[in-house]
């Protein structure tokens, strides 16, 4: 009996001890859990998350630049760069050889590269992987071969649009031209998303979009690739033929200010990095200032007509072909005698222009030049656009007053000249120039009276048909325009050795749809005048442009214009 009792007591104690032990162990575990949960949860949570949570970029492509007919001018296409991890490939000659074969490389070259940098994490092999090569390499399924996608810009029209479109850098950021001007629009916004990654940095799960991606927007220009090409080709031919140093052409629609072609020569190919030389970047049509010479005379005529003293058939005596102003002289090529206003344009008489200017105040002269947009930017907003020089009439000496009437003593850009001729072409409105469709629209401003614009336009048609601009004629069309041959300044003096050959034209003269400026800088060939060097370029471009733009030749309006010529010229028929 006593033995049984003892045994029971022993068991009871053992049970108590065991339960106590269990209780203590559970307490330790619970404390451990509480400790982890309360005392250092932030640190642990952070460590866990950092291993798996990542923010990844959502890439986007740069928008495409199109011309007005949706022909591409700049397109981004994805390319792949290849990188290998030497540490993973160093001991595998077979893989090295396969990679070399796919890349069309000498296997030894690759082996040398890998063994030379065997401790590096990664070495870039090439940035020019074709789609086929990339596929073949990924099909190999080798560890240690990585691809990086990058975007490369292509310019199908190459040299033809190089100055206008510009180009991007390695990271697809705009550096010049439209690419730079509209960089933000074209670029878009790279998105961000939160993802779960495993230890091998593979995305396991996409958790959340933090910043939505905004794809780069496409841009539509007002440029017509066909007209642009015609302009570039004609310009290139003329610059080479006349051994000129450079040239620019602007073609625009005078009625809305849209630029249809804007090109310069020499140019560069933006697709070839070695051709991208800084001295070739300059968009001369926008950045280069020059004295407009005789191409300015139509505005002197416009001033005379606006003043109300002169009518189209008013006469001016230019004899004896020279006029003295202080110590300076203004000369004509010869004594043209008595001329009407049309005659002044037709013969490009400096004396006639001077006399017209002197019959008006310097302020009137300055006012007309300012009204047609000289001395201010055109609204194009292109990089480095020059304002041109138009000093205040208050500072003019009488000789300055005279020189402004035939385009010296002030400077303009090709686009400014195009804008000014648009005023004559569109019935007297000053329009803002634009090169991007749907860009900011500025209200047009009346610069001169409609009747003045019409009269000057008619006179310019005579200047082409019978005067210095004969080479600018286009079969089937009535062309209005003015030539210019400006002497260049060399060491502060006008030289007879360096000229600017200019032509400013409007087509069709009866209902203008295009205005074009041709500038040829320093022709050193047989010819150097605007009529011989620049006017034929206009003719060649317009021959193509009118066909490409479906502009109808010779409308009924041309008859009216011709009759009009008759009335203008009849009183002084003998002068022609």
């Amino acid at each position, binding site marked *: 009996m006593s033995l049984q009792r003892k045994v029971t007591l022993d068991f009871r104690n053992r049970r108590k001890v065991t339960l106590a032990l269990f209780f203590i162990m559970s307490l330790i575990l619970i404390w451990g859990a509480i400790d982890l949960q309360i005392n250092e949860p932030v640190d642990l949570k952070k460590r866990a998350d950092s291993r798996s949570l990542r923010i990844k970029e*959502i*890439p*986007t*492509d740069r928008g*495409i630049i199109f011309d007005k007919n949706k*022909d*591409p001018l700049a*397109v*981004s*296409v*994805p390319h792949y760069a290849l990188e290998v991890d030497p540490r993973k490939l160093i001991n595998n000659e077979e893989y090295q050889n396969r990679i070399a074969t796919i890349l069309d490389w000498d296997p030894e070259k690759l082996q040398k590269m890998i063994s030379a940098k065997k401790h590096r994490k990664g070495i870039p092999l090439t940035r020019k992987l074709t789609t086929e090569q990339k596929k073949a390499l990924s099909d190999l399924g080798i560890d240690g071969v990585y691809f990086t996608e990058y975007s490369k810009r*292509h310019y*199908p*029209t190459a040299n033809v649009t190089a100055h206008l479109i510009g180009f991007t850098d390695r990271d697809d950021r705009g550096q010049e031209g439209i690419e730079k001007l509209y960089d933000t629009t074209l670029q878009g916004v790279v998105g961000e*998303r939160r993802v779960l990654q495993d230890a091998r940095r593979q995305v396991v*799960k*996409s*958790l*959340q*979009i933090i910043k939505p*991606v905004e*794809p780069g927007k496409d841009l539509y220009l007002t440029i017509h*690739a*066909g007209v642009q*090409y015609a302009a570039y080709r004609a310009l290139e031919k003329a610059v080479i033929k006349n051994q000129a140093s450079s040239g620019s052409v602007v073609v625009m629609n005078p009625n809305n200010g849209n630029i249809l072609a804007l090109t310069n020569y020499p140019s560069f190919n933006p697709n070839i990095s070695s051709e991208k030389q800084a001295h070739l970047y300059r968009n001369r049509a926008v950045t280069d200032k020059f004295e407009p010479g005789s191409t300015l005379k139509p505005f002197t005529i416009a001033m005379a007509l606006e003043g109300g003293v002169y009518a189209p058939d008013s006469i001016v005596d230019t004899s004896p072909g020279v006029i003295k102003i202080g110590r300076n002289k203004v000369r004509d090529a010869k004594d043209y005698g008595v001329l009407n206003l049309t005659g002044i344009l037709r013969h490009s008489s400096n004396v006639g222009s001077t006399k017209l200017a002197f019959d008006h105040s310097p302020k009137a002269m300055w006012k007309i030049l300012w009204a047609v947009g000289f001395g201010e930017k055109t609204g194009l907003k292109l990089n480095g656009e020059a304002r041109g020089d138009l000093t205040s009439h208050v500072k003019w000496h009488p000789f300055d007053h005279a020189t402004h009437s035939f385009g010296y003593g002030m400077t303009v850009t090709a686009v400014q000249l195009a804008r000014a001729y648009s005023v004559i072409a569109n019935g007297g409105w000053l329009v803002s120039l634009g090169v991007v469709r749907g860009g900011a629209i500025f209200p047009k401003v009346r610069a001169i009276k409609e009747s003045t614009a019409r009269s000057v336009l008619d006179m310019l048609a005579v200047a082409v048909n019978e005067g210095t601009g004969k080479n600018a004629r286009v*079969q*089937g069309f009535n062309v209005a325009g003015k030539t210019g041959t400006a002497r260049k300044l060399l060491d502060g003096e006008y030289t007879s050795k360096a000229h600017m050959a200019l032509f400013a034209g409007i087509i069709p003269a009866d209902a203008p749809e295009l205005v074009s400026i041709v500038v040829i800088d320093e022709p050193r060939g047989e010819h150097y005048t605007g009529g011989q060097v620049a006017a034929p370029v206009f003719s060649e471009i317009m*021959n193509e442009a009118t066909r490409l733009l479906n502009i*109808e*030749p*010779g409308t009924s309006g041309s008859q009216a214009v011709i009759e009009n010529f008759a009335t203008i010229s009849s009183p002084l028929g003998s002068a022609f």
Partner: protein
Amino acid sequence: MKMNFFVLFLAISVFASALALVTKREETRNFSKQLEKLESERRAVKQDWAKLILRQSNLASHSRVEQVARDALGMKLPEAKTVVSTK
């Protein structure tokens, strides 16, 4: 008794809203996954398109057309006097 019903109602509501939260979260994930997939598809399609229009414009470039017309087909621009315009 009334109190018990109220507690039960609250318990059910808590349970239901917990379930709804989980479902919605899953739905959001699925949708963002779908969005991501569609966006990358859009990008791939646009890239393909870019490649194609680039190729097209290379083939149809004015200089190439002119060269083929002149050299391969022996074509030339008609002279001005041979052109008749009709209205």
